[in-house]
C-alpha cells in the first residue's frame, strides 16, 4: 500500500517536473558567477561586466583575444598629447526608443564617481580630466597627462541614457526601471545570486542575437552546475571543473569548448632586504635575502617542470607560461625563450649562489581564487624540494590571503593574475614597476622589486601615444622583467565550457566571458 502510494507520488512529481519544455529559441546558461547589481557603474567585477554587456553597450569593445574593436564608438584618435576624440555610431537606439548621442557618454563618465562601489569603476575613468560634447556624434576627452591606454579603459565604460539622472541607484536598476541600455537584449528580471533574464531587442544596431529569451542562471557550486547540464536543466555551463572535463569530452550527448584564459599563476619572490618570514639555513635565520640573487630565482624557475604541472596537476587544462600575459596580447614578447626544466643546471646555480644544501622557505598561495591554485601550489613545493629546498607551502582562502599580502606579510607567494585589459601596461605597471604612489604604478608589487632599466623603458612606453612604438617598448619591458625573473610565471590556466551536443556553437573567449549574443544555434 505504502509502496504504491510512494511510486505514484514520485511519478506524479516526475510529470510535474516535465513542465513546459523550453522553446527552441530560448537559451539557459548555468554560470559560476553573476552580477552584484544591474547598475553598470557599480562594480568592476568581471562577472558583472559580462552579464551587463547583454543589456548595455560599452564605448569600445574587445574581440575574443581582447584586442580593441569598435563598440558604440566607431573610431577614436589622438588630437593632441592630452586629448582623445571619439566618433559615435549613428542610428543607435536605447531600449526605450530614444536616440543615443555623445551626451549619454559624457553623462555616463560623470556618473561613475557618484555611484560606484567598493570595486570602483573610477579605475577606468582615472585619466579623464574633462569631457566635451562637440556634436551629437563627437566626443572629446581631455586627459590628466598623456593617456595612451584610454581606449582600453573605455572597454569597460558602459553607456546609460542621460535621462537616467544622477539620483538613480542600484535599486532603480535592479527593479528594471532604469535598466535601459543600447545592448542586444532588454532587461526582464534579476535576483541577487539568482537568474538574470533578458529578451531580444529588435532595434539593436549590431547583428540580431539568435535567441528570443536568455536566462543566465547563477549556479556557484561546480557539481551542481554539472548536474544541471547533465539533467538538461541548462543548455550551457561555464567553468567545467577539471575532474569532470575528461568524462564530458568522452560523452556523446555533450560538447566541450576549451580556451586559454587571461589568468596565469605567478610566483612572487620578495627581494626586499628584510624578509617578513625569515629564510632558514641550518636552523638559523639568514640575515641576507637569497632571493635577491638572480641565480637563486633562476634556479627556482629551472626547477619547475611545467609539463607536469599542465598534464598531471591540471589534467591537461593549462599551457606553460614564460611571461605574465598570453600570446597575442599588446606587449607580449616573442623574444623570451620557452621555459625549460633542468634540475641539474638549477642545482648548479644554487650551489654557485652559495646554497649547495638549499634553504627553508615559507610559500603562501590562494586556494579558492582560480581552479587549480591549491594543487599547483603543492606541486611547486615538491618540485623545489627536489632542488634541495625545504618549502613550507600553505594554501589559504583569498579572504585571508589578500589582506595579509597587502600588508606584505609573506616572503614568497603564488596567486593568479589576469591581464583583463589585454595589454601590458595593466599587468607590468601594477606588478613589476617600482612602487610609486604618485604615478599610480606598482600597487601590487608586493615583492619589493625595483629595476631602473625596466622602469625607464616601461615609463617611456606609457608616455608614447603612437601604438606601434608603444608596443615595441612594452615588448622590451616584458623581456627585461622576465630575464630578471621579477616574477616567475608558471602556467596559463585554461577554461572549459560544456553544452548539450548539437544545441549551439560559439568561439570561446580568452576573458572567459559567456556572451549569449555571440552564441549561435547549431
Amino acid at each position, binding site marked *: 500500500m505504502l509502496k504504491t502510494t510512494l511510486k505514484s507520488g514520485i511519478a506524479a512529481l516526475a510529470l510535474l517536473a516535465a513542465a513546459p519544455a523550453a522553446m527552441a529559441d530560448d537559451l539557459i546558461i548555468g554560470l559560476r558567477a553573476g552580477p552584484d547589481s544591474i547598475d553598470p557603474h557599480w562594480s568592476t567585477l568581471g562577472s558583472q561586466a559580462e552579464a551587463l554587456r547583454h543589456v548595455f553597450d560599452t564605448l569600445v569593445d574587445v574581440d575574443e583575444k581582447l584586442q580593441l574593436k569598435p563598440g558604440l564608438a566607431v573610431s577614436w584618435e589622438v588630437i593632441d598629447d592630452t586629448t582623445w576624440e571619439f566618433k559615435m555610431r549613428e542610428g543607435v537606439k536605447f531600449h526605450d526608443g530614444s536616440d543615443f548621442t555623445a551626451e549619454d557618454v559624457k553623462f555616463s563618465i560623470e556618473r561613475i564617481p557618484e555611484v560606484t562601489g567598493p570595486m570602483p569603476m573610477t579605475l577606468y575613468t582615472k585619466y579623464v580630466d574633462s569631457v566635451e560634447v562637440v556634436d551629437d556624434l563627437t566626443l572629446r576627452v581631455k586627459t590628466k597627462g598623456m593617456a595612451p591606454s584610454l581606449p582600453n579603459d573605455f572597454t569597460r565604460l558602459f553607456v546609460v541614457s542621460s535621462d537616467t539622472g544622477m539620483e538613480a541607484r542600484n535599486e532603480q536598476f535592479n527593479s528594471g526601471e532604469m535598466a535601459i541600455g543600447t545592448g542586444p537584449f532588454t532587461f526582464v528580471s534579476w535576483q541577487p545570486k539568482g537568474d538574470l533574464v533578458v529578451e531580444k531587442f529588435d532595434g539593436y544596431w549590431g547583428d540580431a542575437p539568435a535567441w528570443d529569451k536568455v536566462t543566465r542562471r547563477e549556479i556557484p557550486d561546480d557539481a551542481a552546475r554539472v548536474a544541471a547540464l547533465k539533467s538538461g536543466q541548462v543548455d550551457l555551463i561555464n567553468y567545467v571543473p577539471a575532474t569532470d572535463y575528461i568524462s564530458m569530452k568522452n560523452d556523446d550527448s555533450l560538447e566541450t569548448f576549451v580556451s586559454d584564459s587571461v589568468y596565469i599563476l605567478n610566483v612572487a619572490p620578495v627581494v626586499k632586504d628584510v624578509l617578513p618570514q625569515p629564510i632558514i639555513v641550518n636552523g638559523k635565520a639568514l640575515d641576507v635575502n637569497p632571493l635577491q640573487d638572480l641565480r637563486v630565482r633562476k634556479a627556482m624557475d629551472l626547477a619547475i617542470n611545467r609539463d607536469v604541472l599542465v598534464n598531471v596537476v591540471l589534467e591537461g587544462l593549462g599551457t606553460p607560461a614564460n611571461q605574465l600575459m598570453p600570446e597575442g596580447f599588446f606587449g607580449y614578447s616573442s623574444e623570451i625563450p620557452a621555459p625549460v626544466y633542468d634540475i641539474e643546471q638549477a642545482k648548479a646555480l644554487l650551489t654557485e649562489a652559495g646554497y649547495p644544501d638549499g634553504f627553508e622557505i615559507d610559500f603562501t598561495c590562494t586556494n579558492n581564487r582560480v581552479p587549480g591554485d591549491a594543487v599547483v601550489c603543492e606541486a611547486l613545493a615538491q618540485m623545489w624540494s627536489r632542488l634541495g629546498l625545504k618549502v613550507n607551502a600553505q594554501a589559504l582562502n583569498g579572504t585571508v590571503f589578500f589582506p595579509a599580502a*597587502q600588508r606584505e606579510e609573506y616572503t614568497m607567494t603564488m596567486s593568479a593574475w589576469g591581464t583583463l585589459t589585454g595589454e601590458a601596461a595593466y599587468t607590468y605597471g601594477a606588478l613589476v614597476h617600482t612602487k610609486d604612489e604618485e604615478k599610480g604604478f606598482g600597487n601590487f608589487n608586493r615583492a619589493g622589486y625595483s629595476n631602473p632599466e625596466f622602469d625607464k623603458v616601461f615609463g617611456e612606453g606609457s608616455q608614447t601615444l603612437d601604438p606601434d612604438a608603444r608596443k615595441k617598448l612594452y615588448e622590451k619591458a616584458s623581456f627585461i622583467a622576465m630575464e630578471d625573473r621579477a616574477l616567475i610565471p608558471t602556467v596559463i590556466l585554461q577554461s572549459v565550457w560544456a553544452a548539450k551536443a548539437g544545441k549551439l556553437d560559439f568561439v570561446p573567449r580568452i576573458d572567459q566571458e559567456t556572451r549569449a549574443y555571440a552564441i549561435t544555434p547549431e
Partner: protein
Amino acid sequence: MFGYLVGRLSQAVVVVFVMSVIVFVGVYAIGNPIDVMIDPGATAEIRENLIRQYGLDQPLWRQYFTFIANVFQGDLGNSMVYNIPVTSLVFSRLPATLELVMVSVFIASVIGIPAGLYAGYKPNSIAAKLIMALSVLGFSVPTFWIGMLLIMGFAVELGWLPSGGRGAVGDFLWFKTSLATSDGWAHVIMPAINLSLFKMGLLIRLTRAGMVEAMGAEYVRFARAQGLPDREIVFSHILRNISIPVVTVFGLELGSTLAFAVVTETVFNWPGVGKLIIDSILQLDRPVMVSYLVMVVVLFVFINLTVDLIYARLDPRVRLKGGS
C-alpha cells in the same frame, strides 16, 4: 508569565549585543574588506578614498558606535557588495529557506517519530533493527554526498526531478511561495529529503530511547493491568511523556537548520539565505554578516521561548518563572 517573557527578551538583547561585537572584532582582525574586493588595477588613491568613504579608516570602536547608532534608527545598513538594504536582501531570500526547512522538518517528523515509536515498541523485530541501522546512516553519511547521489539518481539518470533551483512561485493566502505550485514541489522535494535525513535519524533515536524506557515504566504496566489497548497506551500516555526531550531537540534542530542549511542549499542551488551568508563571509561584507547573525540569534531565542511554552503545556509540573 509576563516577567518571564521580559526576562527572556532582555537576555536576547544582551546576546545580540555581544554577538555584534564579536563579528566586528572578527572582521577587523581578518583585515580590510576593501582589500578583498578591490580590483587589482586600482591606484592607491582610489583605495584610500574608498576606505574613507566606508569609514574603515576610523578606529574600531567608532565604526561600531556608528553602526549601533544607525541600528537604533532602524537602519541595519546597506550591503557593501549589493548596495541594497541588508534587510531587503536577507528577506528576499528567507522565504526560500523557510520553505525548504518547513518541508524537511515535516518529512523528518512524520517519518522519524512513528518509526522511532515502532522501533521502541518492538525493539527486537527485524524492522526495528533496520530502522535503527538506517538512522545511523542518516546522521553519519555527509549531507552533500547524499545530495549528489540523489541528483545523480533522480535528476541525471532517471530525469524525474529537476537537479536544483527553486520552482515557480505561486500565491498562497497572502504569501508568495513555491509550495503553492506543482513545479515548486518538484523542486523542493529532493533538497528537503536530503536536509531531513539528519533530523530524521536523530528523532528516530530519541523517540526510540524514550519509548524503550517508558515501556518498562510503572504507569505503562498499570495501564496494561487495567486492560487498556496498546494503541491507547502508546499514543495517549507514552507519547505525551516522551515528548519533552523530543520537542527540545526538535526546536534546536529547527533553528540550526534554518540558520545553516547551507550545504544542501549549495548542492541543490537553492536560493536561500545560507549561500548568501557564506558569500558575505568570503567577501567580508560586514553589514550582511552582522544583520544575518542578529537575525539568527533572535530566531534561536524565539524558538527556545516557544519550546519552553510548549513544555509548560505538555508537563504540568513545569512552571515558568521570571527571568530563570
